[in-house]
């Protein structure tokens, strides 16, 4: 390679790597500054507090419940969007994406407004009370993550060649058998990755939750709400400890997704 071309290639490589390095330094600086705001002994002490454990348990419970509900709804919906043809498919596909781009606070506000209508009040009075209650956390998380679940699951189904399902029909599968015995196993790694990402997003959900369920300590105090309440009360040590718990949960989830993605592409 001529010398000038070599220099250009080296410069391009350097420019690309530099931006990566800047990003890495930026996030590392954030974590370091967080770590600097507390000490190991304070961290341990905070982790032993009841309100922190309450937030951890409530977050894991509500995120698991809202993710389960979201996946139950999203799985067939994503399959329909991916493998079936029907009128208005593009419009529905676009509508499903709306909650992803909308601010969670807007979604929470929409839910709050809904429960002020006669239909909403009917549900509140006769079925479940959502507003400023723990079920409100689950509903808010569900509303925010269900669209994400549809989008991620659709991507998982898009990776499955419809030929498998077609050929299985000739082999004797009913449409339901073809879905459960062929398409689902083929999409399994993608589905697992989608479930983990949806769950991680539900754990971190704040805007819709705080709008619908409110921010009440030891009642609707999930991990993100706990951070918000801690800062509001100027309890920086608790806020930092909870941030690290969230980072840990998200890190484990993303590592799991990476492992599953490698399995999909190694297939």
């Amino acid at each position, binding site marked *: 390679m001529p010398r000038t071309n070599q220099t250009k290639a080296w410069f391009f490589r350097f420019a690309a790597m530099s931006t990566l390095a800047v990003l890495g330094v930026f996030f590392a600086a954030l974590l370091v500054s967080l770590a600097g705001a507390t000490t190991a002994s304070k961290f341990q002490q905070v982790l032993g507090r009841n309100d922190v454990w309450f937030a951890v348990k409530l977050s894991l419970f509500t995120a698991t419940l809202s993710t389960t509900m979201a996946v139950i709804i999203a799985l067939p919906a994503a399959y329909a969007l991916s493998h079936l043809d029907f009128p208005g498919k593009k419009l529905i596909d676009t509508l499903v994406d709306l909650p992803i781009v909308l601010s969670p606070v807007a979604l929470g506000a929409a839910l709050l407004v809904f429960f002020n209508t006669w239909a909403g009040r009917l549900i509140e009075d006769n079925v479940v009370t959502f507003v400023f209650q723990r079920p409100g956390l689950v509903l808010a998380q569900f509303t925010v993550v269900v669209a994400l679940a549809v989008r991620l699951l659709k991507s998982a189904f898009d990776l499955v*060649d419809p*030929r*498998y399902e*077609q*050929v*299985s*029909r*000739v*082999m*004797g*599968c*009913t449409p339901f*058998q073809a879905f459960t*015995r*062929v398409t689902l*196993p*083929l999409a*399994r790694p993608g589905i697992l990755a989608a479930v983990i990402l949806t769950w991680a997003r539900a754990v971190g959900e704040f805007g819709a939750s705080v709008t619908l369920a409110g921010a009440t300590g030891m009642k609707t105090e999930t991990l993100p709400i706990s951070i918000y309440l801690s800062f509001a009360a100027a309890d920086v040590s608790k806020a930092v400890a909870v941030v690290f718990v969230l980072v840990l949960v998200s890190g484990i989830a993303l590592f799991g997704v990476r492992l599953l993605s490698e399995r999909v592409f190694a*297939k």
Partner: protein
Amino acid sequence: MIRVERLACAAGKFKLGEITLAIAPREYFALLGPTGCGKTMLLECICGLRNINQGQIVADGKDVTRESPELRGFGYVPQDYVLLPFLTVSENILFPLRVQRKLDADARAHFSALVDILRIGQLLDRKPRHLSGGEKQRVALARALVTRPKLLLLDEPYAAVDMALKKKLWAEMKSIHGRFQTTVLHVTHDLDEALTLSQRAAVLVNGQVEQVGPMGEILDCPATRQVAEFIGMTNVYRGLVAGIDESGGSMTIRWNGWMLRTPLHNRLAPSAEVEFYLRPDKIKPLTTPVKEGTGNTGVILAIFSSVVVQRGGRTLFFKVPNGADAANRDTEDLEVSLSNESSFAPREGEPVSLSVPETAVGVFYRAVHPVAGRRAADCLCLQAGRGQLPGTARADEGGTGETGRGAIGAAEG
């Protein structure tokens, strides 16, 4: 018996049909055609994977047109085999029996027999990604046969295997068909494959069935220009009926100023325009040259231009000038095939006299309009020396006269 009647299907701008075919019980039937002619589409219509616009599919006397694919009872080997990657070979083969809840002792015995015949016993615990192309083909075949289907549909199953293995697999397929006597519809674009395996074949071009009959007949006596082009025949021309000798059972065609003799076609009138082909292997160079404009029937003068050497022989390319008018500069291209035994080697630009006997000249019978009140199939085959109706199978071709005639009727329909 599998019958497809007036089937039509459309996908975008491509239209298939109307297709009418009849496959006899236990028959090995090939569906031939160039890429993009609609072979796979027709197969998917028969399987039930594609909705049809009109027509009927009848299997063993039962109309299955509106039935779901899983209720038709057909076996299917797709071109890419579509083995389930998360199952082992044995689980793949047993999959249709499991979903149909038919995994009894008899089915297991049949599974074992198939495993033995296809020699895949050592592969049973492997996953499909660890199989070669030939092994995948065998596994897909076993999976399709394990339910004892009414009809086995094979979609170019040997397209992904090399020639040496292909021949082995053809032999294996022949023996499997002989043993299980399954009715087979085999889609391929490979003439040798169809010739080796099938008892009869249909040629599909641009979504239309152009010809149905034994492979030997399709190769010897193509019904239309499209069939001729598909089987690689290039010597296709237009001429005029110059004379009819009813007592001698022949007629003369005037082509580019030359006179050629072919068996009599009783539906052609003198001066009628006719489309015909010249078989390159039947044309022979003459040692005695012929003069232009002599009017010798069955002899033409051609200018040698080039040669291509192939396994088993050579193909010589000629330019044929006008035989009646030397001033006419219009020439026709002509190919002549010579075996390796022939030492004939003209120089470029050398005029060569060629003998074109009756056996070398064939008229496309489908291009001729039938006489009122008679079916086209009742008109004689114009391939010289055959003295037989197109579609009527000869004993050595393995079919029956009945099915052959039915097929031509179907093709005309």
